[in-house]
């Protein structure tokens, strides 16, 4: 089996897929890259058994065939060759010889049938969405995902396909982020799936801030995002996401209207003196005034007074200042609205530009 690929074609393709190859994989085959030679071109696939990345590039060959090659070694070789180089591969009796100019390399191979490729069964929902929109949807919610929680279904991001709407929800049990975007989508019933943390981070990295469209396919066991030159597939978390609608409060009649920058800066100043472990901040509200009070174990104190628009009752609630700051920082609008209906219910933060994003932070008992 022989084929030739130019470095110009191969290097960017390797850069795209090699990220998913673990440095110390649990199985030898996972450090390899699958190459399928077919009339459509040369297809490269890499996986860590959770996420799979596939890309197709052009190359010269006479016969179709498949093989797997060590991904990182191939990447390092390719990177080190001169820019105009061509790599010519010849595979014989389990070894791959690569010749480029006056350089020769021989790599070990593994049979292509032994490569665990993902195949998509029974696609339940598919839609197209602009890359930038999808990226920002993930970016606005992913921060609230749990990390290594025993409630395994929280260690990921819920994607919910509704009629003409895609919703993303993430929560770690202390705070929640939820965002909706409009997409042309038709489903018989609401389709939920949980993308694992790793998949979400990888996908966010791959998506560009552009208006080109990507095709998304959701099946029972996988989500596949076709980015054009690259196809991303991830396994899902097998579990039921909690009923998040019950913890998202309705917007109150008298929300606090506050400038995002003033609140963010005020809270981050105050947080300097918060207890390292509990990160508590006492928020007290009175007419047109929000005060953030923080103290730590050494009895040091910080107090911030922030001008707001508020006409409701005076009240005092405790929060984890890091969670508040996370939510406030992710809201990019000039002003935001905060609803705290009672000191024991969650606090709802909304951007004021009409986008459909909601953030909930649960209170602390201080």
């Amino acid at each position, binding site marked *: 089996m022989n084929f030739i690929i130019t470095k110009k074609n191969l290097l960017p393709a390797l850069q795209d897929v090699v990220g998913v190859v673990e440095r110390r994989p649990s199985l030898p085959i996972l450090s390899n890259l699958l190459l399928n030679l077919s009339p459509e071109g040369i297809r490269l696939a890499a996986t860590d058994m959770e996420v799979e990345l596939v890309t197709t590039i052009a190359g010269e060959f006479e016969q179709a065939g498949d093989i797997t090659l060590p991904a990182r070694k191939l990447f390092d070789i390719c990177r080190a060759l001169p820019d105009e180089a061509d790599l010519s591969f010849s595979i014989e009796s389990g070894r791959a010889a690569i010749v480029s100019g006056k350089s020769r390399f021989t790599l070990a191979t593994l049979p292509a*049938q*032994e490569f*665990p490729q993902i*195949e998509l069964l029974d696609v339940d929902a598919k839609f197209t969405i602009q890359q930038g929109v999808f990226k920002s949807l993930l970016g606005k919610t992913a921060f609230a995902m749990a990390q290594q929680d025993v409630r*395994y279904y929280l260690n990921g991001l819920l994607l919910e396909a509704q009629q003409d709407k895609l919703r993303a929800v993430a929560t770690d049990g202390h705070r929640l982020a939820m965002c909706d975007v409009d997409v042309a989508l038709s489903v018989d019933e609401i389709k939920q799936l949980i993308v694992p943390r790793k998949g979400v981070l990888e996908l966010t990295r791959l998506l560009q801030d552009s208006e080109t469209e990507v095709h998304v396919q959701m099946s*029972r*066991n996988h989500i596949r995002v076709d980015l054009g030159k690259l196809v991303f597939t991830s*396994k899902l978390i*097998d579990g039921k996401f909690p009923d998040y609608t019950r913890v998202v409060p309705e917007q109150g009649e008298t929300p606090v209207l506050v400038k995002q920058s003033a609140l963010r800066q005020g809270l981050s100043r105050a947080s300097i003196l918060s207890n390292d472990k509990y990160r508590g901040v006492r928020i007290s509200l009175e007419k047109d005034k929000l005060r953030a009070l923080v103290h730590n174990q050494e009895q040091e104190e910080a107090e911030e007074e922030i001008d707001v628009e508020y006409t409701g009752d005076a009240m005092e609630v405790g929060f984890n200042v890091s969670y508040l700051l996370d939510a406030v920082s992710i809201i990019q609008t000039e002003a935001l609205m905060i609803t705290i209906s009672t000191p024991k219910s969650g606090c709802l933060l909304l951007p004021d530009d009409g986008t459909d994003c909601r953030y909930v932070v649960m209170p602390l008992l201080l």
Partner: protein
Amino acid sequence: MPYPWQKKQWRQVATAIERQRLAHAILLAGAEGTGIDQFAIELAQYLLCEAPVQPDSGCGQCRSCILFRAGNHPDIRMVNPEKPGMQIKVDAIRELIEYFHLSVQYGKHKITIIAPAEGMNRHSADGLLKTLEEPPPLSLLILVSYQPAKLPVTIRSRCQKIIFNRINRQASFDWLNGRLGDSGRTAALLEFAGGAPLKALELSETDVLQQRQDVMKDLRVLRTSKSNPVDTAKKWQEFDMAEVLLWLIFIFSNMAKIRYSSGNESIDKETGHLSAGLDLPQVISCYDLALKNYHLLTGTTNLNRQSLLEEIIIHWQCLKGSSLPASLNKYD
């Protein structure tokens, strides 16, 4: 394909699969060296195979079987101690749980084999409980246990038990003899492996028969001369420690049998000589000690191996026999 002596258990499982009533967690309980770990692997391959050959094997041709044989099947995970005899740590179980809650890749099952299950320490076993109680869909957890009594009752009660009884002597003899083609050696090895055919086969490739002769000789020398227990313990440590303790258990239990009924033909004369002059309680006390130290050795705490052996050796050496047979005195 399961081993010939596992037909009954296979039928039990196969019927459950056929009726779609296979439990989400099954505990395979049987002696080491009788292939129950292999049974678990066969079962996994059978379940994952795209076109299983009835009644008992994977086709070996389909994508699933090829991946399985290469050890790359994405829907199976093996959990073993890092080194044989070590514990299965809680991190391994956490990783397993994370894997278990990811969706299956090829849509049939996701299978995990924990072998040996009693290798899990308390934290690992506790960590597994929740998943054992509420397993994700399509999942199957196979616990392989050589000493199921050592498993926490919380684990045992959440699994369907499949018990592998003692193997019929003839069945294992035929199987092993078919491989070795030497009936004398087969019999010796089988006796030695406590009737476990796979263990006997494994032993046939080592010089344990010779080593065991050495242990017998050392026991004799210890009784008749003032040889140093520390040196003997050091020497025995160079053999496989667990094996040595099993031999001792075996030898002492044979001695006890002789004490019970003299003229037991199946036991070699040497053992008879060795135990001459000892009474039953003395032999039993040796047996108990060897058994206790075997459990300590294979248990989850790491104890000083030298001391475990020395304890038995000194106990053996200090037994006051009524009289030593003259035939042994020449070693003095």
